[in-house]
């Protein structure tokens, strides 16, 4: 897989991360925090919603302990992503720590669906993760520096991430041996969107999904 082919895989994330990163940077600058904190946060935290949450907590002068606990709870969903990556990362070198560090919603989605030959999988995964993080860093720094003077109307471009998840759901559905989990997830997602509080919607829905998947293992596997 050459670099251009890998880059092409990440374009949807590019389209989502630049504007979202810019929105993050803009918000940070509105709190009168210097732009280089946007850089630090995007390098060392690299979690979209986690960084937005951190800004809200900064604004309300939350303690550092509160920030740690809230970030942990918000990002707990990533534990499920790691769980689906154990055997994939198993034989990778120490560099897998960067892959684990960079396992955002979108990176997870790309890694799980991209078809990469076994031999250079580690390298391709590292490039995908690094490209995604670059987009996020660039977006957040540009947003923090000049978000409020850019004339381009990019309102709505973050929908590319929604479309990315839609497309990858279809891809995974086609590849999956079992089809019942798909329909169960549709129902859980729909109910979760309306019934769960937005802040906790993802982690609650994922817990319900994992619960149903495990408890109803036998009926999930029967009759496809």
């Amino acid at each position, binding site marked *: 897989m050459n670099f251009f082919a890998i880059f092409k895989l990440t374009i949807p994330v590019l389209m989502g991360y630049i504007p979202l990163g810019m929105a993050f940077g803009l918000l940070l600058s509105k709190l009168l925090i210097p732009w280089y904190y946007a850089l*630090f946060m995007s390098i060392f935290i690299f979690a979209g919603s986690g*960084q937005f949450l951190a800004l809200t907590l900064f604004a309300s002068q939350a303690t550092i302990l509160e920030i740690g606990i809230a970030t942990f709870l918000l990002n707990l969903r990533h534990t499920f992503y790691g769980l689906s990556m154990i055997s994939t990362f198993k034989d990778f070198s120490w560099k897998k720590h960067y892959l684990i560090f960079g396992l955002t919603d979108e990176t997870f989605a790309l890694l799980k669906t991209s078809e990469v030959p076994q031999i250079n999988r580690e390298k391709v995964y590292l490039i995908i993760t690094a490209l995604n993080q670059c987009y996020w860093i660039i977006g957040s720094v540009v947003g923090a520096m000049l978000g409020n003077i850019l004339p381009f109307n990019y309102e709505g471009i973050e929908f590319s991430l929604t479309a990315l998840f839609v497309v990858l759901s279809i891809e995974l559905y086609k590849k999956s041996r079992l089809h019942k989990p798909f329909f169960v997830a549709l129902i859980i997602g729909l109910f979760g969107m309306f019934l769960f509080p937005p802040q906790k919607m993802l982690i609650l829905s994922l817990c319900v999904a994992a619960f149903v998947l495990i408890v109803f293992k036998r009926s999930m596997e029967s009759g496809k």
Partner: protein
Amino acid sequence: MESSYLIGAIIVASIATYTTRIIPFLLFRTREPSPLVKYIELNMPLMIMVILVFYALKDVTWEIYPYGIAEIIGVIVAIALHVKFKNALLSIFVATLVYMFFIQKIF
């Protein structure tokens, strides 16, 4: 805001985020994952991806005008194009353009 506060908060948030991502790898570092874990590993990603679609739509106000019509159209365009042409980039790109057109020019 004091820089010591910001730096401390960034370090803590960084560790908290990394911890959530590394937990499963630490749990199964030495022992072989059981058949149940393998079953979860195999089937959970599809469920995660579907739920992420709804998560991405969680801030839509369905009760009041424009009732999330632009989002629904965008999702339908993405599904239709992807089923027909199987080209991920095309589906995502066109769906996003259609969505941007609707929210900027119509609603």
